[in-house]
Protein backbone atom coordinates (compact mmCIF):
# COMPACT_ATOMS: atom_id res chain seq x y z
CA UNK A 1 0.00 0.00 0.00
CA UNK A 2 1.27 3.45 -0.83
CA UNK A 3 1.18 6.18 1.73
CA UNK A 4 -1.42 8.88 1.15
CA UNK A 5 -0.71 11.04 4.15
CA UNK A 6 2.64 11.70 5.75
CA UNK A 7 2.84 13.72 8.92
CA UNK A 8 6.48 14.47 9.72
CA UNK A 9 7.75 16.17 12.86
CA UNK A 10 4.64 18.27 13.36
CA UNK A 11 4.65 20.61 16.31
CA UNK A 12 2.17 23.31 17.21
CA UNK A 13 2.52 26.12 19.72
CA UNK A 14 -0.37 28.50 20.23
CA UNK A 15 0.76 32.00 21.06
CA UNK A 16 -1.63 34.45 22.69
CA UNK A 17 -0.11 37.58 24.29
CA UNK A 18 2.29 36.37 27.01
CA UNK A 19 0.86 32.87 27.18
CA UNK A 20 2.17 30.18 24.87
CA UNK A 21 0.81 26.64 24.82
CA UNK A 22 2.74 23.83 23.21
CA UNK A 23 0.02 21.47 22.06
CA UNK A 24 1.76 19.06 19.71
CA UNK A 25 5.38 17.96 19.71
CA UNK A 26 7.20 15.93 17.05
CA UNK A 27 4.22 14.04 15.69
CA UNK A 28 5.08 11.48 13.02
CA UNK A 29 2.36 9.47 11.39
CA UNK A 30 1.87 7.84 8.01
CA UNK A 31 -1.51 6.79 6.68
CA UNK A 32 -1.78 4.45 3.70
CA UNK A 33 -4.23 4.75 0.87
CA UNK A 34 -7.52 3.10 1.86
CA UNK A 35 -6.71 2.83 5.55
CA UNK A 36 -9.11 3.56 8.42
CA UNK A 37 -7.15 5.13 11.27
CA UNK A 38 -8.67 6.15 14.58
CA UNK A 39 -7.02 8.90 16.59
CA UNK A 40 -7.68 8.87 20.33
CA UNK A 41 -6.37 10.76 23.30
CA UNK A 42 -7.55 12.76 26.31
CA UNK A 43 -9.47 15.92 25.62
CA UNK A 44 -7.19 18.89 25.08
CA UNK A 45 -4.28 16.80 23.81
CA UNK A 46 -4.43 18.37 20.38
CA UNK A 47 -6.48 15.98 18.22
CA UNK A 48 -8.52 18.75 16.63
CA UNK A 49 -5.40 20.85 16.19
CA UNK A 50 -3.66 18.00 14.37
CA UNK A 51 -6.67 17.40 12.13
CA UNK A 52 -6.83 21.08 11.18
CA UNK A 53 -3.14 21.10 10.34
CA UNK A 54 -3.63 18.02 8.17
CA UNK A 55 -6.57 19.73 6.46
CA UNK A 56 -4.48 22.80 5.70
CA UNK A 57 -6.78 24.95 7.81
CA UNK A 58 -4.11 25.77 10.39
CA UNK A 59 -0.35 26.22 9.88
CA UNK A 60 1.95 24.00 11.91
CA UNK A 61 4.69 25.65 13.95
CA UNK A 62 7.21 23.06 12.79
CA UNK A 63 7.13 20.00 10.57
CA UNK A 64 5.45 19.10 7.36
CA UNK A 65 2.32 17.37 6.15
CA UNK A 66 2.29 15.72 2.76
CA UNK A 67 -0.90 14.61 1.09
CA UNK A 68 -0.56 12.50 -2.04
CA UNK A 69 3.11 13.46 -2.07
CA UNK A 70 2.53 17.24 -2.04
CA UNK A 71 3.18 19.49 0.93
CA UNK A 72 -0.04 20.80 2.44
CA UNK A 73 -0.17 24.59 2.76
CA UNK A 74 -3.88 25.09 2.15
CA UNK A 75 -6.81 22.65 1.97
CA UNK A 76 -5.83 20.24 -0.80
CA UNK A 77 -8.23 18.87 -3.43
CA UNK A 78 -9.70 15.49 -2.56
CA UNK A 79 -10.19 16.19 1.12
CA UNK A 80 -13.51 15.79 2.93
CA UNK A 81 -14.32 16.88 6.48
CA UNK A 82 -17.02 16.06 9.02
CA UNK A 83 -16.98 17.98 12.29
CA UNK A 84 -18.74 17.32 15.57
CA UNK A 85 -20.88 20.47 15.31
CA UNK A 86 -23.29 19.33 12.60
CA UNK A 87 -25.66 22.21 13.34
CA UNK A 88 -22.97 24.73 12.52
CA UNK A 89 -21.24 23.00 9.63
CA UNK A 90 -24.34 23.00 7.41
CA UNK A 91 -25.81 26.19 5.97
CA UNK A 92 -29.25 26.69 7.49
CA UNK A 93 -30.61 28.70 4.56
CA UNK A 94 -29.84 25.96 2.09
CA UNK A 95 -31.81 22.76 1.65
CA UNK A 96 -30.17 19.40 2.27
CA UNK A 97 -29.61 18.96 -1.46
CA UNK A 98 -28.11 22.43 -1.87
CA UNK A 99 -25.80 21.81 1.08
CA UNK A 100 -24.55 18.58 -0.46
CA UNK A 101 -24.20 20.11 -3.92
CA UNK A 102 -22.49 23.38 -3.00
CA UNK A 103 -18.85 22.34 -3.24
CA UNK A 104 -19.50 20.29 -6.40
CA UNK A 105 -20.51 23.46 -8.23
CA UNK A 106 -16.90 24.56 -8.31
CA UNK A 107 -15.55 21.34 -9.72
CA UNK A 108 -15.34 20.60 -13.38
CA UNK A 109 -18.46 18.43 -13.53
CA UNK A 110 -21.43 18.33 -15.86
CA UNK A 111 -24.80 19.21 -14.41
CA UNK A 112 -26.01 15.66 -14.88
CA UNK A 113 -22.98 14.18 -13.16
CA UNK A 114 -23.39 16.61 -10.27
CA UNK A 115 -27.03 15.65 -9.80
CA UNK A 116 -26.08 12.00 -9.92
CA UNK A 117 -23.38 12.43 -7.27
CA UNK A 118 -25.76 14.28 -4.97
CA UNK A 119 -28.58 11.75 -5.40
CA UNK A 120 -26.19 8.85 -4.86
CA UNK A 121 -24.70 10.43 -1.73
CA UNK A 122 -28.12 11.14 -0.22
CA UNK A 123 -29.23 7.58 -0.95
CA UNK A 124 -26.02 6.23 0.53
CA UNK A 125 -26.70 7.91 3.89
CA UNK A 126 -30.40 7.02 3.82
CA UNK A 127 -31.68 10.52 3.13
CA UNK A 128 -32.85 10.00 -0.43
CA UNK A 129 -36.24 11.48 0.39
CA UNK A 130 -35.04 14.45 2.46
CA UNK A 131 -33.33 16.48 -0.26
CA UNK A 132 -35.78 19.35 -0.10
CA UNK A 133 -35.84 19.63 3.69
CA UNK A 134 -33.79 22.21 5.57
CA UNK A 135 -31.17 21.03 8.06
CA UNK A 136 -33.10 22.46 10.99
CA UNK A 137 -36.08 20.29 10.10
CA UNK A 138 -33.97 17.19 10.74
CA UNK A 139 -32.80 15.48 13.92
CA UNK A 140 -29.16 15.77 15.00
CA UNK A 141 -28.30 12.32 13.68
CA UNK A 142 -29.87 13.13 10.32
CA UNK A 143 -28.00 16.43 10.11
CA UNK A 144 -24.76 14.56 10.64
CA UNK A 145 -25.83 12.23 7.83
CA UNK A 146 -26.15 15.29 5.60
CA UNK A 147 -22.60 16.35 6.51
CA UNK A 148 -21.44 12.82 5.65
CA UNK A 149 -23.35 12.91 2.37
CA UNK A 150 -21.66 16.19 1.54
CA UNK A 151 -18.30 14.49 2.01
CA UNK A 152 -19.31 11.37 0.05
CA UNK A 153 -20.63 13.37 -2.91
CA UNK A 154 -17.24 15.06 -3.11
CA UNK A 155 -15.55 11.63 -3.52
CA UNK A 156 -12.64 12.53 -1.25
CA UNK A 157 -9.45 10.49 -1.18
CA UNK A 158 -9.11 11.34 2.49
CA UNK A 159 -11.98 11.92 4.91
CA UNK A 160 -11.20 13.62 8.21
CA UNK A 161 -13.80 13.16 10.94
CA UNK A 162 -13.49 15.04 14.23
CA UNK A 163 -15.57 13.40 16.98
CA UNK A 164 -18.46 13.23 14.54
CA UNK A 165 -20.83 11.29 16.80
CA UNK A 166 -20.09 12.81 20.21
CA UNK A 167 -23.28 14.84 20.21
CA UNK A 168 -25.82 12.16 19.29
CA UNK A 169 -27.58 9.54 21.39
CA UNK A 170 -26.29 5.96 21.76
CA UNK A 171 -28.63 4.21 19.30
CA UNK A 172 -28.10 6.86 16.59
CA UNK A 173 -24.41 6.65 17.25
CA UNK A 174 -24.30 2.90 16.62
CA UNK A 175 -26.24 3.39 13.37
CA UNK A 176 -23.90 6.14 12.22
CA UNK A 177 -20.83 4.04 13.06
CA UNK A 178 -22.11 1.24 10.89
CA UNK A 179 -22.94 3.75 8.17
CA UNK A 180 -19.37 5.08 8.15
CA UNK A 181 -17.97 1.54 8.07
CA UNK A 182 -20.17 0.72 5.08
CA UNK A 183 -19.28 3.90 3.21
CA UNK A 184 -15.59 3.37 3.84
CA UNK A 185 -15.73 -0.03 2.15
CA UNK A 186 -18.06 1.08 -0.61
CA UNK A 187 -16.18 4.18 -1.71
CA UNK A 188 -12.63 3.09 -0.90
CA UNK A 189 -11.81 6.29 0.97
CA UNK A 190 -9.04 6.73 3.48
CA UNK A 191 -10.46 7.82 6.83
CA UNK A 192 -8.84 9.47 9.83
CA UNK A 193 -11.39 9.36 12.61
CA UNK A 194 -10.89 11.33 15.81
CA UNK A 195 -12.82 10.13 18.84
CA UNK A 196 -12.48 10.10 22.59
CA UNK A 197 -14.43 6.85 22.72
CA UNK A 198 -11.99 3.92 22.82
CA UNK A 199 -14.62 1.31 21.97
CA UNK A 200 -15.67 3.31 18.95
CA UNK A 201 -12.05 3.62 17.83
CA UNK A 202 -11.44 -0.14 18.08
CA UNK A 203 -14.78 -1.05 16.54
CA UNK A 204 -14.28 1.08 13.43
CA UNK A 205 -10.60 1.21 12.65
CA UNK A 206 -7.75 -0.87 11.34
CA UNK A 207 -5.32 1.00 13.54
CA UNK A 208 -5.65 3.09 16.67
CA UNK A 209 -3.19 5.93 17.16
CA UNK A 210 -2.97 7.31 20.70
CA UNK A 211 -1.93 10.91 21.30
CA UNK A 212 -0.91 11.91 24.79
CA UNK A 213 -1.18 15.29 26.45
CA UNK A 214 2.23 16.85 27.00
CA UNK A 215 3.88 13.85 25.37
CA UNK A 216 6.37 14.15 22.58
CA UNK A 217 5.39 12.17 19.49
CA UNK A 218 2.68 9.60 19.07
CA UNK A 219 2.16 7.68 22.29
CA UNK A 220 1.11 4.38 20.74
CA UNK A 221 0.15 2.92 17.38
CA UNK A 222 -1.95 -0.22 17.78
CA UNK A 223 -3.05 -2.37 14.83
CA UNK A 224 -6.62 -3.66 15.09
CA UNK A 225 -6.64 -7.21 13.78
CA UNK A 226 -10.39 -7.82 13.96
CA UNK A 227 -12.38 -9.30 11.07
CA UNK A 228 -13.15 -6.91 8.25
CA UNK A 229 -16.86 -7.62 8.70
CA UNK A 230 -17.83 -6.18 12.02
CA UNK A 231 -21.13 -6.06 13.75
CA UNK A 232 -22.10 -4.06 16.84
CA UNK A 233 -22.98 -6.85 19.25
CA UNK A 234 -20.84 -9.72 17.97
CA UNK A 235 -17.65 -7.74 17.46
CA UNK A 236 -17.87 -5.78 20.66
CA UNK A 237 -18.39 -8.93 22.74
CA UNK A 238 -15.52 -10.87 21.16
CA UNK A 239 -12.47 -11.72 23.24
CA UNK A 240 -10.08 -10.02 20.80
CA UNK A 241 -12.08 -6.78 20.98
CA UNK A 242 -11.75 -6.87 24.76
CA UNK A 243 -7.98 -7.35 24.57
CA UNK A 244 -7.56 -4.52 22.10
CA UNK A 245 -9.65 -2.06 24.05
CA UNK A 246 -7.66 -2.90 27.18
CA UNK A 247 -4.43 -2.22 25.29
CA UNK A 248 -5.66 1.13 24.07
CA UNK A 249 -7.04 1.97 27.52
CA UNK A 250 -3.68 1.27 29.11
CA UNK A 251 -1.96 3.60 26.67
CA UNK A 252 -4.45 6.41 27.17
CA UNK A 253 -4.27 6.02 30.95
CA UNK A 254 -0.49 6.40 30.82
CA UNK A 255 -0.98 9.96 29.64
CA UNK A 256 0.13 12.20 32.52
CA UNK A 257 -2.68 14.76 32.45
CA UNK A 258 -5.37 12.30 31.51
CA UNK A 259 -8.89 13.62 31.80
CA UNK A 260 -10.44 10.59 30.22
CA UNK A 261 -13.04 8.62 32.09
Amino acid at each position, binding site marked *: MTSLLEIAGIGKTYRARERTVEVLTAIDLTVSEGEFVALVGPSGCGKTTLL*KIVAGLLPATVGQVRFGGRPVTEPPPGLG*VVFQEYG*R*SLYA*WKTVRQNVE*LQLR*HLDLSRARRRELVADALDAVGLGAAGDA*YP*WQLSGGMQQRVAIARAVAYRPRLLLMDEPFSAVDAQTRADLEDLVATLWKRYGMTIVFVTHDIDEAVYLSQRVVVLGAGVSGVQADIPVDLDADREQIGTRSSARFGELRTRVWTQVRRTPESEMV
Partner: protein
Amino acid sequence: MKALGYALGLPAALVAAWWVASDGSTNVFLPPLRTIVEAFRDVWFSDTFVRDVVPSLWRLAAGYAIALAAGVVLGFVIGRWAAPRALTGPLLAYFRVLPAPVLIPVLLVAVGIGDTTKLVVITVGAVWPILLNTADGVRAADEVGLQCAAAYRLPRRTRHLLVLRGASPQIFAGARQALGLSIILMVVSEMLMSTDGLGFTVVQFQRSFAIPQMWSGVLLIGLLGFGLAKLFELVERRALRWHRGHTGQLTERP
Protein backbone atom coordinates in the same frame (compact mmCIF):
# COMPACT_ATOMS: atom_id res chain seq x y z
CA MET B 1 -59.50 36.47 10.64
CA LYS B 2 -59.47 36.85 14.39
CA ALA B 3 -55.90 38.16 14.24
CA LEU B 4 -56.94 40.70 11.64
CA GLY B 5 -59.79 41.80 13.90
CA TYR B 6 -57.35 42.34 16.77
CA ALA B 7 -54.91 44.19 14.56
CA LEU B 8 -57.49 46.56 13.13
CA GLY B 9 -59.77 46.85 16.16
CA LEU B 10 -57.92 49.49 18.16
CA PRO B 11 -56.95 51.73 15.21
CA ALA B 12 -60.54 51.61 13.96
CA ALA B 13 -61.88 52.53 17.40
CA LEU B 14 -59.43 55.43 17.72
CA VAL B 15 -60.27 56.79 14.28
CA ALA B 16 -63.98 56.55 15.11
CA ALA B 17 -63.39 58.33 18.42
CA TRP B 18 -61.39 61.05 16.66
CA TRP B 19 -64.13 61.41 14.08
CA VAL B 20 -66.89 61.78 16.68
CA ALA B 21 -64.92 63.96 19.11
CA SER B 22 -63.65 66.35 16.43
CA ASP B 23 -66.93 66.61 14.56
CA GLY B 24 -68.16 70.16 15.08
CA SER B 25 -64.82 71.34 16.41
CA THR B 26 -64.34 75.07 15.90
CA ASN B 27 -60.68 75.12 16.94
CA VAL B 28 -58.83 76.14 13.74
CA PHE B 29 -55.79 74.11 14.72
CA LEU B 30 -57.79 70.94 15.38
CA PRO B 31 -60.29 70.78 12.52
CA PRO B 32 -62.90 67.99 12.33
CA LEU B 33 -61.56 64.73 10.89
CA ARG B 34 -64.28 65.02 8.27
CA THR B 35 -62.68 68.27 7.02
CA ILE B 36 -59.20 66.68 7.06
CA VAL B 37 -60.40 63.73 4.99
CA GLU B 38 -62.01 66.07 2.50
CA ALA B 39 -58.79 68.08 2.33
CA PHE B 40 -56.86 64.84 1.90
CA ARG B 41 -58.92 63.93 -1.13
CA ASP B 42 -58.66 67.42 -2.64
CA VAL B 43 -54.93 67.84 -2.03
CA TRP B 44 -53.45 64.40 -2.72
CA PHE B 45 -55.71 63.05 -5.45
CA SER B 46 -54.53 65.81 -7.76
CA ASP B 47 -51.38 66.83 -9.59
CA THR B 48 -49.84 67.57 -6.17
CA PHE B 49 -49.22 63.86 -6.04
CA VAL B 50 -46.95 63.99 -9.06
CA ARG B 51 -45.40 67.29 -8.05
CA ASP B 52 -44.68 66.50 -4.39
CA VAL B 53 -45.21 62.85 -3.49
CA VAL B 54 -43.29 61.37 -6.41
CA PRO B 55 -40.11 63.41 -5.78
CA SER B 56 -40.26 62.49 -2.08
CA LEU B 57 -40.61 58.80 -2.84
CA TRP B 58 -37.84 58.99 -5.37
CA ARG B 59 -35.45 60.65 -2.89
CA LEU B 60 -36.39 58.16 -0.23
CA ALA B 61 -35.85 55.19 -2.54
CA ALA B 62 -32.55 56.44 -3.94
CA GLY B 63 -31.13 57.57 -0.58
CA TYR B 64 -32.15 54.32 1.09
CA ALA B 65 -30.78 52.18 -1.73
CA ILE B 66 -27.39 53.91 -1.63
CA ALA B 67 -27.30 53.58 2.17
CA LEU B 68 -28.13 49.89 1.87
CA ALA B 69 -25.46 49.17 -0.72
CA ALA B 70 -22.78 51.25 1.00
CA GLY B 71 -23.69 49.98 4.48
CA VAL B 72 -23.54 46.32 3.48
CA VAL B 73 -20.27 46.66 1.56
CA LEU B 74 -18.49 48.76 4.20
CA GLY B 75 -19.95 46.71 7.05
CA PHE B 76 -18.72 43.54 5.36
CA VAL B 77 -15.18 44.86 4.98
CA ILE B 78 -15.08 46.17 8.54
CA GLY B 79 -16.60 43.02 10.01
CA ARG B 80 -14.46 40.60 8.04
CA TRP B 81 -10.95 41.99 8.45
CA ALA B 82 -9.23 43.19 11.58
CA ALA B 83 -7.15 45.95 9.97
CA PRO B 84 -10.03 48.04 8.58
CA ARG B 85 -11.89 47.43 11.83
CA ALA B 86 -9.04 48.78 13.94
CA LEU B 87 -8.60 51.68 11.54
CA THR B 88 -12.22 52.79 11.53
CA GLY B 89 -13.12 51.97 15.13
CA PRO B 90 -12.90 55.48 16.67
CA LEU B 91 -14.41 57.10 13.57
CA LEU B 92 -17.41 54.78 13.69
CA ALA B 93 -17.89 55.44 17.39
CA TYR B 94 -18.08 59.16 16.59
CA PHE B 95 -20.38 59.00 13.59
CA ARG B 96 -22.81 56.52 15.07
CA VAL B 97 -23.83 59.08 17.70
CA LEU B 98 -23.80 62.13 15.43
CA PRO B 99 -27.44 62.99 14.57
CA ALA B 100 -27.77 63.17 10.80
CA PRO B 101 -29.89 66.38 10.69
CA VAL B 102 -26.91 68.43 11.93
CA LEU B 103 -25.43 67.75 8.52
CA ILE B 104 -28.20 69.70 6.85
CA PRO B 105 -26.80 73.21 7.45
CA VAL B 106 -23.31 71.99 6.57
CA LEU B 107 -24.44 70.40 3.34
CA LEU B 108 -26.61 73.35 2.51
CA VAL B 109 -23.48 75.45 2.37
CA ALA B 110 -21.30 72.82 0.79
CA VAL B 111 -23.64 71.21 -1.76
CA GLY B 112 -26.58 73.62 -2.11
CA ILE B 113 -30.29 73.06 -2.06
CA GLY B 114 -30.62 70.49 -4.88
CA ASP B 115 -31.64 66.85 -4.74
CA THR B 116 -28.06 65.82 -4.08
CA THR B 117 -28.14 67.42 -0.64
CA LYS B 118 -31.27 65.54 0.33
CA LEU B 119 -29.86 62.26 -0.98
CA VAL B 120 -26.65 62.82 0.94
CA VAL B 121 -28.57 63.59 4.14
CA ILE B 122 -30.71 60.47 3.83
CA THR B 123 -27.77 58.25 2.89
CA VAL B 124 -25.38 59.57 5.50
CA GLY B 125 -28.01 59.32 8.20
CA ALA B 126 -29.35 55.89 7.29
CA VAL B 127 -26.08 54.13 6.51
CA TRP B 128 -24.94 53.69 10.13
CA PRO B 129 -27.40 51.13 11.47
CA ILE B 130 -26.88 49.07 8.30
CA LEU B 131 -23.11 49.33 8.44
CA LEU B 132 -22.81 48.59 12.15
CA ASN B 133 -25.25 45.69 12.13
CA THR B 134 -23.68 44.17 9.03
CA ALA B 135 -20.23 44.43 10.62
CA ASP B 136 -21.50 42.72 13.78
CA GLY B 137 -23.22 39.97 11.81
CA VAL B 138 -20.23 39.37 9.56
CA ARG B 139 -17.86 39.30 12.49
CA ALA B 140 -19.99 36.67 14.22
CA ALA B 141 -19.87 34.40 11.14
CA ASP B 142 -19.76 30.79 12.26
CA GLU B 143 -16.19 29.49 12.38
CA VAL B 144 -17.23 25.89 11.73
CA GLY B 145 -19.19 26.79 8.61
CA LEU B 146 -16.26 28.83 7.32
CA GLN B 147 -13.81 26.00 7.94
CA CYS B 148 -16.03 23.60 6.02
CA ALA B 149 -16.15 26.10 3.16
CA ALA B 150 -12.37 26.41 3.20
CA ALA B 151 -11.78 22.66 3.46
CA TYR B 152 -14.03 22.06 0.44
CA ARG B 153 -12.13 24.75 -1.44
CA LEU B 154 -15.08 27.02 -2.15
CA PRO B 155 -13.92 30.07 -4.08
CA ARG B 156 -13.40 33.30 -2.17
CA ARG B 157 -16.50 34.90 -3.69
CA THR B 158 -18.74 32.03 -2.61
CA ARG B 159 -17.33 32.16 0.89
CA HIS B 160 -18.00 35.89 1.09
CA LEU B 161 -21.57 35.29 0.01
CA LEU B 162 -21.98 32.59 2.66
CA VAL B 163 -20.79 35.04 5.30
CA LEU B 164 -23.20 37.71 4.07
CA ARG B 165 -26.11 35.32 3.98
CA GLY B 166 -25.28 34.13 7.47
CA ALA B 167 -25.28 37.77 8.58
CA SER B 168 -28.61 38.52 6.91
CA PRO B 169 -30.63 38.54 10.16
CA GLN B 170 -28.45 41.39 11.46
CA ILE B 171 -28.43 43.10 8.08
CA PHE B 172 -32.22 43.08 8.06
CA ALA B 173 -32.34 44.46 11.60
CA GLY B 174 -30.11 47.35 10.52
CA ALA B 175 -32.07 47.90 7.33
CA ARG B 176 -35.32 48.11 9.29
CA GLN B 177 -33.94 50.85 11.55
CA ALA B 178 -32.51 52.60 8.51
CA LEU B 179 -35.87 52.64 6.77
CA GLY B 180 -37.48 54.55 9.63
CA LEU B 181 -34.53 56.95 9.73
CA SER B 182 -34.69 57.49 5.97
CA ILE B 183 -38.32 58.57 6.14
CA ILE B 184 -37.58 61.01 8.97
CA LEU B 185 -34.59 62.45 7.14
CA MET B 186 -36.50 62.72 3.88
CA VAL B 187 -39.24 64.77 5.56
CA VAL B 188 -36.87 66.90 7.66
CA SER B 189 -34.58 67.70 4.74
CA GLU B 190 -37.58 68.71 2.65
CA MET B 191 -38.90 70.90 5.42
CA LEU B 192 -35.61 72.75 5.76
CA MET B 193 -34.35 72.99 2.21
CA SER B 194 -36.65 72.20 -0.64
CA THR B 195 -39.03 73.60 -3.20
CA ASP B 196 -41.13 70.47 -3.47
CA GLY B 197 -41.83 67.21 -1.67
CA LEU B 198 -44.01 66.06 1.20
CA GLY B 199 -42.10 67.83 3.95
CA PHE B 200 -42.03 71.06 1.96
CA THR B 201 -45.79 70.87 1.27
CA VAL B 202 -46.70 70.32 4.92
CA VAL B 203 -44.64 73.35 5.93
CA GLN B 204 -46.19 75.44 3.13
CA PHE B 205 -49.70 74.57 4.30
CA GLN B 206 -48.78 75.45 7.85
CA ARG B 207 -47.32 78.82 6.81
CA SER B 208 -50.43 79.66 4.80
CA PHE B 209 -52.74 78.54 7.62
CA ALA B 210 -54.25 75.79 5.49
CA ILE B 211 -54.64 73.68 8.64
CA PRO B 212 -56.83 70.80 7.36
CA GLN B 213 -54.47 70.46 4.38
CA MET B 214 -51.48 70.44 6.73
CA TRP B 215 -53.11 67.67 8.77
CA SER B 216 -53.79 65.70 5.61
CA GLY B 217 -50.07 65.84 4.85
CA VAL B 218 -49.23 64.55 8.30
CA LEU B 219 -51.72 61.74 7.77
CA LEU B 220 -50.19 60.83 4.41
CA ILE B 221 -46.64 60.71 5.79
CA GLY B 222 -47.86 58.45 8.60
CA LEU B 223 -49.60 56.14 6.16
CA LEU B 224 -46.52 56.06 3.95
CA GLY B 225 -44.29 55.07 6.85
CA PHE B 226 -46.74 52.43 7.98
CA GLY B 227 -47.08 50.96 4.48
CA LEU B 228 -43.34 50.80 3.93
CA ALA B 229 -42.76 49.19 7.33
CA LYS B 230 -45.36 46.53 6.54
CA LEU B 231 -43.82 45.89 3.13
CA PHE B 232 -40.41 45.56 4.74
CA GLU B 233 -41.76 43.09 7.27
CA LEU B 234 -43.20 40.98 4.48
CA VAL B 235 -39.87 40.79 2.66
CA GLU B 236 -38.00 40.10 5.89
CA ARG B 237 -40.33 37.29 6.94
CA ARG B 238 -39.79 35.55 3.63
CA ALA B 239 -36.03 36.06 3.53
CA LEU B 240 -35.41 35.00 7.12
CA ARG B 241 -37.72 32.02 7.36
CA TRP B 242 -34.64 29.77 7.61
CA HIS B 243 -33.40 31.79 10.56
CA ARG B 244 -36.61 31.36 12.50
CA GLY B 245 -36.42 27.65 11.76
CA HIS B 246 -32.76 27.43 12.72
CA THR B 247 -33.34 29.22 16.01
CA GLY B 248 -36.44 27.16 16.78
CA GLN B 249 -38.98 29.92 16.32
CA LEU B 250 -40.84 28.08 13.60
CA THR B 251 -43.27 25.38 14.61
CA GLU B 252 -44.74 24.39 11.26
CA ARG B 253 -42.91 21.66 9.35
CA PRO B 254 -43.59 21.87 5.64
